[in-house]
C-alpha cells in the first residue's frame, strides 16, 4: 500500500515497508521478537523438565546397581537374619514398657515406694532378662556375617573405583598408565561361600532360639492387675506370631540366590515405595521417598487445617461483612503478611514459636489435647503453624476474588426473598463461588508443599515415617520433607553420585506434584463453575 502512495505524501508513512529481513517487514520482525519472549515461559518449563531428567534419570540405573550389589555381596542375606533380630528387639522394648507400667502401678495405685516397687518386679526383670539374652547366639552370628558381607562390598567398591580410574586414564590418553591399573573382578561365588556356609549353624541357632523363647514365655510371671495381664497376653500373642515367622525366614535363606537379577522396576519401586531414606551408611544406602513424602503431606495437612478456615473465613468477612474502611485496612495488611520472607518465618519458628508451643503443651490444663505435653521443640505442628501463615494470604486473595465474581444480583435476589445476611452468605454466595474457593485452597496447598525454608528450619528433620499409632498425637513428632532434604543435602553430595541423582528425582517428584495440583485447580475452576449471568 505504502509504495503506491504519491511521492509527496511518502514522508508521512515513510518507514512503512522498506525494511525487509527474510521477507518480513519491520513490524513483522518486532512481532516475532515479542512472540519469542512470550515463548520463553514454555521454554523455561521445558528446560526445567529436561534438566531435572538429565541429572535425575540416571538414578534408576544407579539404584538398580546399588540393589544388585546389595544382593550379590550378601547383604540381603544377612538382613533376613537381622530383621529377625530387630523384631526381637522390638518385643524386648515392649517388655521394658510393660515394666515401666508395672512400676507405675505399684507406686501410684498401691502407694509403694520406688524401692519396694522395684523389688516387686524383680521376678519380671529376670524373665525379661532371660527373654532378652536368648537372642545372643543370633546376634553374634549376625555381627560375624555383617563383617564378612561388608568386606565383600568393600572389595567390590575398590574394584569399581579402580575401573573408574582406568577409564579416566584411558580418556585422558594415558593407555600405559591405564594398563598398570589392575582390576580383579570380584568372584562372588567364592566370596559368598563362607556366608552361605553358616546356614546349618543358623538353623541350629534359630531352633534353639525358638525353643528358648517358648520356654521363657511360658514361665512368665503373673501381672498384678487385669489391664497389665491383658498386656502380657498381648505380648504372648505377639511372641507367638514372631515365632511363627521363623520358618519363613529359614525358607528365605534357603532359597536365596545372589544370581537372581534385580528387575528394573524394583529400582523404581524401591524409590517410590521405599520406607527408608538412609544415606552415607556403612551398610547399605536406601533411597525411599515415603518418609519424606509423608512428612511433606503431614506438614501441609496441618497447615491447611489451620489455614483454610482462617483464610476462607477472612475472605468471607472482608468481602461480605466488613465495612469499606475495614476492607481498605485489612486487604493491604494481609498482602503485607504474604511479603514476609519464609526464612524469617522459619527463624521466628526456631527462636520463638517452637518454645512457645512447647511451653503451651506443658500447661496442665491442656494435657487433654492429643500429643500434649511433648518435648521436641521442632515438629510437624511448629512447621504447620508457620506454613499456615504462608498459605493464608494465598487462600485469602484467591477466595476473595472468587467471592467478588459472584454477581450482585444473586445477593439482591436472596435478600428480596427475605433471607438473612447469614443465609445469603452460606447458601448463596459461598456455593456460587465454591469452585473458586476450592481452587484457592489447592493453590494454597501447592504453595505450602513447595515451601522450603520453614520446613527445613522448623520440621525437626528426622528422616522417619511418623508413628501413626499415636493417633492425632502424630503431629507433635519431627519429620523431614522433600523440599527440606533437597535443600539440606544438595550442598554436601558428590556431583554425579547416586545420592545427588536421588535428590534430583525427589525434585522431579515435587515438580510433577506441583503441576498436578495446579492442573487440578484449573480443572475445578473450569468444570464446576456455576453458569453465572
Amino acid at each position: 500500500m505504502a509504495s503506491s502512495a504519491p511521492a509527496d505524501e511518502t514522508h508521512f508513512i515513510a518507514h512503512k515497508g522498506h525494511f525487509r529481513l527474510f521477507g518480513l517487514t519491520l513490524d513483522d520482525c518486532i512481532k516475532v521478537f515479542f512472540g519469542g519472549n512470550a515463548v520463553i515461559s514454555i521454554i523455561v518449563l521445558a528446560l526445567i523438565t529436561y534438566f531435572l531428567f538429565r541429572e535425575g534419570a540416571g538414578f534408576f540405573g544407579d539404584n538398580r546397581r546399588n540393589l544388585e550389589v546389595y544382593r550379590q555381596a550378601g547383604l540381603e542375606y544377612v538382613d533376613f537374619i537381622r530383621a529377625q533380630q530387630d523384631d526381637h528387639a522390638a518385643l524386648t522394648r515392649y517388655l521394658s514398657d510393660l515394666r515401666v507400667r508395672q512400676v507405675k502401678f505399684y507406686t501410684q495405685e498401691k502407694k509403694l515406694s520406688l524401692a519396694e516397687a522395684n523389688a516387686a518386679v524383680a521376678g519380671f526383670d529376670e524373665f525379661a532378662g532371660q527373654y532378652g539374652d536368648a537372642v545372643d547366639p543370633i546376634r553374634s552370628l549376625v555381627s560375624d556375617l555383617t563383617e564378612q558381607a561388608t568386606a565383600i562390598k568393600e572389595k567390590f567398591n575398590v574394584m569399581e573405583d579402580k575401573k573408574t580410574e582406568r577409564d579416566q586414564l584411558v580418556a585422558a590418553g594415558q593407555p600405559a598408565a591405564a594398563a598398570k591399573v589392575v582390576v580383579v573382578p570380584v568372584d562372588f561365588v567364592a566370596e559368598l561361600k563362607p556366608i552361605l556356609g553358616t546356614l546349618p549353624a543358623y538353623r541350629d541357632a534359630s531352633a534353639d532360639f525358638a525353643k528358648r523363647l517358648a520356654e521363657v514365655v511360658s514361665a512368665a510371671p503373673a501381672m498384678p492387675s487385669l489391664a497389665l495381664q491383658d498386656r502380657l497376653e498381648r505380648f504372648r500373642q505377639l511372641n507367638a506370631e514372631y515365632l511363627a515367622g521363623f520358618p519363613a525366614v529359614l525358607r528365605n535363606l534357603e532359597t536365596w540366590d545372589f544370581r537372581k537379577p534385580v528387575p528394573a522396576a524394583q529400582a523404581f519401586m524401591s524409590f517410590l515405595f521405599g520406607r527408608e531414606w538412609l544415606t552415607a551408611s556403612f551398610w547399605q544406602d536406601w533411597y525411599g521417598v515415603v518418609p519424606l513424602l509423608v512428612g511433606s503431606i503431614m506438614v501441609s495437612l496441618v497447615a491447611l487445617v489451620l489455614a483454610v478456615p482462617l483464610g476462607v473465613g477472612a475472605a468471607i468477612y472482608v468481602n461480605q461483612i466488613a465495612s469499606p474502611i475495614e476492607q481498605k485496612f485489612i486487604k493491604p495488611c494481609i498482602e503485607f503478611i504474604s511479603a514476609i520472607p519464609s526464612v524469617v518465618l522459619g527463624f521466628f519458628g526456631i527462636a520463638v514459636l517452637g518454645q512457645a508451643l512447647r511451653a503451651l503443651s506443658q500447661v496442665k490444663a491442656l494435657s487433654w489435647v492429643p500429643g500434649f505435653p511433648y518435648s521436641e521443640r521442632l515438629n510437624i505442628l511448629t512447621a504447620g503453624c508457620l506454613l499456615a501463615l504462608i498459605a493464608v494470604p494465598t487462600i485469602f486473595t484467591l477466595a476473595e476474588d472468587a467471592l467478588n465474581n459472584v454477581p450482585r444480583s444473586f445477593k439482591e435476589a436472596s435478600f428480596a426473598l427475605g433471607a438473612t445476611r447469614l443465609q445469603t452468605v452460606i447458601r448463596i454466595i459461598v456455593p456460587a463461588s465454591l469452585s473458586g474457593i476450592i481452587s484457592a485452597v489447592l493453590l494454597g496447598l501447592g504453595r505450602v508443599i513447595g515451601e522450603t525454608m520453614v520446613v527445613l528450619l522448623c520440621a525437626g528433620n528426622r528422616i522417619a515415617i511418623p508413628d501413626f499409632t499415636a493417633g492425632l498425637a502424630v503431629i507433635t513428632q519431627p519429620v523431614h520433607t522433600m523440599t527440606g532434604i533437597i535443600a539440606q543435602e544438595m550442598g554436601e553430595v558428590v556431583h554425579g553420585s547416586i545420592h545427588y541423582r536421588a535428590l534430583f528425582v525427589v525434585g522431579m517428584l515435587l515438580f510433577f506434584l506441583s503441576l498436578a495440583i495446579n492442573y487440578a485447580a484449573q480443572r475445578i475452576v473450569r468444570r464446576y463453575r456455576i453458569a453465572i449471568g
Partner: protein
Amino acid sequence: MSALTTHPFQTRASVARRSETAIFWLFRGATYFVLLCGAVVFLNIFVKGSRTVFQTKAPFVNTAFFTESPESLYVFQWEGQKREMGDKEFRAFKETHPAAANVKAESYVYCAGGIFPCIVGTVLLVVGSMTIALTLGVCAAVYLNEYARDGTFIRFVRLAILNLAGVPSIVFGLFGFGMFVIFFGWNVSLLAGWFTLAFMVLPVVITASEESLKAVPKGFREGSLALGATKWQTIRKNVVPYALPGILTSSILGIARVAGETAPIMFTAAYVVRDKLPWQVDHIGDFFFQGVMALPYHIYVVSSKIPQNEYTERVQYGTAFVFLLIVALIAAASILLRSRLRNRYKW
C-alpha cells in the same frame, strides 16, 4: 412510641439473628487473628532486632553492623571484667597486651562485625534478576496483549505461565544448579543466581504487565492507528508509556519475592562466607562469575548452624530485622504506589 418500636421491618431478636451475629463474629475473629499473627511476627523481630540495629548513643544507629563484614566474636574475662571483641580487635588486643596471649576466650562465629556484604549481595541479586525478568516479562506481555490472537499456541503459552507460577522455588534452585552451574559451567555465581531468580519471578512480572497493558483504553490504540502510525509506533508511543508506571509498581511485588527467596540461591549464587566484596575482582568479567553473600541465606546460616544464646541472638535478630525491614519497605511501597496509581489514571 410503642407503635414505632413494633414496625414490621424492625429487626427482631431471634435465634437466627443471634446466631448470625455469633457467626459473623467468628469470621471477624478469624480475620483479626491472622492479622494478629502477622503483627506478632513483625513486632517480635522489630523489637528484638532493634536492640542490635539501634543504640542509645549518637548516631543512634549501629553503623558497624551495616558497614562491616561478619567475623567471630570472642568473649573472655580480663581484669575481672567481661570483655567482648570481634576477631580483628581481639588480635590487636593480644598484641598490645602480651599477658592476654593465653587468655581463655569463648568464640562465637559470625557474631561480631556486621552484614554489609550480605546487603550488597542481596541488592546485586535483586537488581540483576529484576532487570532480566522485566525485560523478558514486559516483552512477553506486550506480545500476549497486543499481538496475539486467541489460538492453540496462545493457550499453551498461558498454560505454561500458570504452571510456571506454581513450581516450587526449590525446584527452580535445582534447575538453576543443573543448567547454569553444572551444564553451562558458571559455578556458583551471580549470573546463575540472576537467571534462576528471573525465571522464577517471570510469571509474576508477565501477569502484572499484562494487567497494566489491559488497563490502557482501546481508544488510545485506535486513535494512533487511525492517524497512520504503525503497530510498533502505536505500542511504543501510545500504549507502553501509559502502562509503564503500572508495570513497575506491580513488579515491585516481584522484587519483594526475589529478595525474600532463599531456596533458589542456596546452590546457585550464595556463599556462606566470602572475604572479598563483589567489586574486588581482578577482571571485570569475573564480576559475573563470583558467588556473593546474601541476607536470606545468612539468616538461614546463623539461625540453623550456630546454637542460640545471648551473643548469637544479637546477630540473628539483627539480620532478620534488617532483611524484614527491606522487604517490608519494598512491599509497602508497592501497595501504596498501586493505590495512588489507581486514583490517578481514570479513563
